[in-house]
């Protein structure tokens, strides 16, 4: 949870995303212009990219989802709330949950976090999260989304470790 401060949430979020993108760009630039591909450099870059994805995922629900609102203000359709999307929106259930600040953005973050996991496990995690969030009282959804996102990196690690162990265990 980001600490309370007088800095508006959207500025915090913009700062975090700017930092993540800058460091990611710097990492790629260093790798391309530096000595030919060395394993430590690749590992460092992988770490930076993973950390940055984590920052963006964390920053997104921690704030008020201003990017979603900004898109709506400019008259463009909001993808995860409009018809023809996937998940709840595709089943025509999205509107039933009602709009809660941060939760629409949280859904995008859930989708992004699910990519960190093995495909089937990520789908199941996201489907279950959406199912629980749908039935949850509106006031609790923001906290629940954050709890899902906080546990996602560790869960992804656990699932990948288990999967790799199973694969290499079989071969050994």
């Amino acid at each position, binding site marked *: 949870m980001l600490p309370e401060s007088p800095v508006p949430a959207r500025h915090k979020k913009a700062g975090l995303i700017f930092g993540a993108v800058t460091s990611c760009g710097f990492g790629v630039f260093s790798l391309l212009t530096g000595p030919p591909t060395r394993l430590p450099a690749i590992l460092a870059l992988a770490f930076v990219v993973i950390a940055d994805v984590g920052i963006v995922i964390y920053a997104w629900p921690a704030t008020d989802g201003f990017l979603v609102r900004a898109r709506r203000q400019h008259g463009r359709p909001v993808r995860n709330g409009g018809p023809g999307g996937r998940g*709840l929106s595709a*089943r*025509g*259930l999205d509107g*039933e949950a009602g709009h809660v600040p941060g939760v629409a953005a949280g859904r995008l973050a859930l989708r992004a976090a699910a990519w960190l996991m093995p495909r089937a496990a990520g789908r*199941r*995690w996201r*489907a*279950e*999260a*959406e*199912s*629980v*969030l*749908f*039935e*949850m009282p509106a006031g609790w959804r923001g*906290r*629940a*989304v*954050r*709890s*899902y*996102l*906080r*546990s*996602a990196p*560790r*869960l992804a690690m*656990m699932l990948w470790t*288990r999967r790799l162990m199973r694969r290499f265990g079989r071969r050994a």
Partner: protein
Amino acid sequence: MAMRLTVQVLLVLQALLRDPGRELYGLELSEETGLLPGTAYPILLRLEHEGWVTSRWEDVDPREQKRPARRYYRLTADGAVQASAAVANARRPRGAALRTLAGEGGAA
């Protein structure tokens, strides 16, 4: 791999043990344990991998029900035995510590 029995894991086990035959879904479990659903999910997944818990998607049409299908969890027969033992074990040291403290208090 042995299950690491944290307080959160014990809370989930206790909730499932209240009625071992009953199926609980994520929100019910959250309400019964006081854990956020994001915290309960990895625990349930670990319990499922260990064979203590089994889960299934609810067989409903989301359009008819006007809500997404729920994922239901319940203890397996083996899981219920192991969970009861684990919860009982977790309670025992605390009781012993209290008796020790009471004994010390009485002796003083």
